[in-house]
């Protein structure tokens, strides 16, 4: 019998949560729709039947207090997971996350700590529009005392959710809705990934693409198109936002000497700016660094504009070609993001 199974990202999250709840009776999960028949992309499906309604339950639409309730329960030794169908709803939790969760360990000088996991879905497609698609992870990473991670692969999302649950600090766990159906090999055992390590997804020599969450998929597709021009890119999946794995980035930068950061967010005062700064602070020589990300507008709903709002594999490939060759004479072939075309909700 194999020790791994081919699981979707959503199933991998489920398995990580299921195994954590089985392993530790202090783990419990709640949020809107946790016990409904869809179980938030299957990630919470039937947990209430397995572990009882005390440990997996639906809630009022009270994000502010429920964040505080998660924090309070963690002070009593519990390890709560609070599920949000959309990152945008976390704006209603900001006081508890920024003023309470991130501060309690410090102001108590370590006498208290807040082991909570806040799951939040982000991402594009199917007219999510201005208030249902935002990433906003940079907000949280700005705050000392909060951990922020955004895994891309089924392997990392399972190891990541388990590591987040086991971590003794508040973790914002960012899931992209275009990834839930992506499949990959996932070990059957309960395992953790590091909450401060990036992953080199693809080795290459001509240029380094740094992606986060779904933009890693865009980068991989861009690398396929770039084979047409025999350009070989290295791809780094950042995974951890609050604890940047700058060592891995610098190692790659020294090798390829060209970097494009493809953020899954706006660029202004954002993650890509932070990465750029840290690279320039550490490298003794100057290399070209470019940033790509959302257009600096709210996300438009209509597909026609939405496609322009996000950096696509096609646009990334073109940018890479220009940086590597110093030429602008190539129009890359279009690649269709099947999951975006096929996605019809619900969230």
């Amino acid at each position, binding site marked *: 019998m194999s020790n791994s199974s081919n699981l979707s990202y959503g199933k991998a999250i489920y398995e990580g949560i299921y195994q954590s709840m089985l392993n530790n009776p202090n783990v419990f999960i709640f949020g809107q729709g946790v016990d409904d028949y869809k179980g938030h992309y299957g990630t919470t499906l039937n947990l209430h039947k397995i572990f009882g309604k005390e440990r997996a339950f639906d809630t009022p639409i009270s994000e*502010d207090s429920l964040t505080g309730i998660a924090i309070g329960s963690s002070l009593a030794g519990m390890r709560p997971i609070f599920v949000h169908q959309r990152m945008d709803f976390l704006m209603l939790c900001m006081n508890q996350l920024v003023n309470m969760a991130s501060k309690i360990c410090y102001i108590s000088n370590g006498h208290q700590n807040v082991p909570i996991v806040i799951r939040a879905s982000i991402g594009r497609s199917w007219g999510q529009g201005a208030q249902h698609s935002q990433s906003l992870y940079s907000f949280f990473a700005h705050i000392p005392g909060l951990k922020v991670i955004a895994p891309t692969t089924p392997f990392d999302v399972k190891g990541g959710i388990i590591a987040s649950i086991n971590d003794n600090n508040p973790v914002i766990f960012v899931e992209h809705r275009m990834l839930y159906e992506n499949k990959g090999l996932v070990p059957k055992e309960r395992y953790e990934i590091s909450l401060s390590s990036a992953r080199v997804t693809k080795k290459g020599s001509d240029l380094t693409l740094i992606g986060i969450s779904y933009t890693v998929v865009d980068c991989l597709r861009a690398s396929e198109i770039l084979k047409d021009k025999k350009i070989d890119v290295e791809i780094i999946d950042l995974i951890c936002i609050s604890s940047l794995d700058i060592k891995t980035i610098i190692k790659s930068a020294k090798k390829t000497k060209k970097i494009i950061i493809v953020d899954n967010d706006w660029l202004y005062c954002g993650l890509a700016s932070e990465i750029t700064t840290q690279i320039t602070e550490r490298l003794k020589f100057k290399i070209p660094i470019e940033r790509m990300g959302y257009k600096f507008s709210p996300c438009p709903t209509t597909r026609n504009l939405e496609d322009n709002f996000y950096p696509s594999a096609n646009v990334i490939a073109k940018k890479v070609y220009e940086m590597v060759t110093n030429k602008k004479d190539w129009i890359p072939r279009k690649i269709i993001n099947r999951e975006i075309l096929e996605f019809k909700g619900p969230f």
Partner: protein
Amino acid sequence: MPKEKFNFIEAYYRYKKIRRTEEKITEVYHTDKIKSPVHLSIGQESIAVGCSMASSKKEIIFSNYRGHAHFIAHGGDYKAFWSELYGKRNGLSSGKAGSMHLGDLNINFMFTSAIVASSIPNAVGYALAQKIKNFSNVVLCYHGDGAMDQGVFWESINFASLKQLPILFICENNEYAIYSHLKKRMYKSNIVERVRSFGLKAKKIKNDTFTIFEETKKILNKIRKNSIPHFIEIPTSRLKDHVGIENSPNMKKNDSRLVEDKELLFLRSKVKDFKKIDKKIESEIDTAIDYAEKSKYPKQNEILKNVFSDI
């Protein structure tokens, strides 16, 4: 319990210790040894004393930035309290907290918040954990009338009621949010009635130490037995400014309560040897301040410690 059996000695001790501590802070404040805002409890002592005397050691206490009275009444580490005010290494949190964030886990006193109402859902979450784990500890959540202006208060009591959690909300209604009177903040000041409509057992209690003690004791027993969330409103007066050591401008000019607190005089009248208690309190204060004065400040490398828990 008949009133004669009430432990007036202990009540007087706690009440007077809070009052004298707060007065001492006003005395030393000009030296700027406490380099931080203080939110004093003078005038509100009876609530902390009555509720703390009704509590067992198992109760979990959630207070707020006006927490000196609660902290002292519930028996928090007094020397560490003063060291914390002085920003010293052997304070409750090595000086990282100060007056607004007092805490002492030895008495289940959770570190407090300086954001109005923000600890209230934390208290509810703690109570939820008690329910999930089948523990019988009751959570006490002290807050002011100002906290009831916040949406999170109403979200929190809704959830406490929905899950029938073992929690007692104690509303110290001093009528003011800084200088804004209740009537400027609420269309109707029928606090108890509104809370009751959420399904909590709610009651307004007369402000005297014994009544508060007696009612709270009864309610705590009920909560332990049935896990039904309760709410009490106790009218009170904050005699000092919202923050700082000045007298409250909300008081009438010739208000005598600062010099002749009727409740304190009443408790004293029940204690034969009150002078001995007074002496004990003064000695405790002097010892604690001396301890704080002589203590060292945290080392510079402390600054980055405990940003994250590394337990």
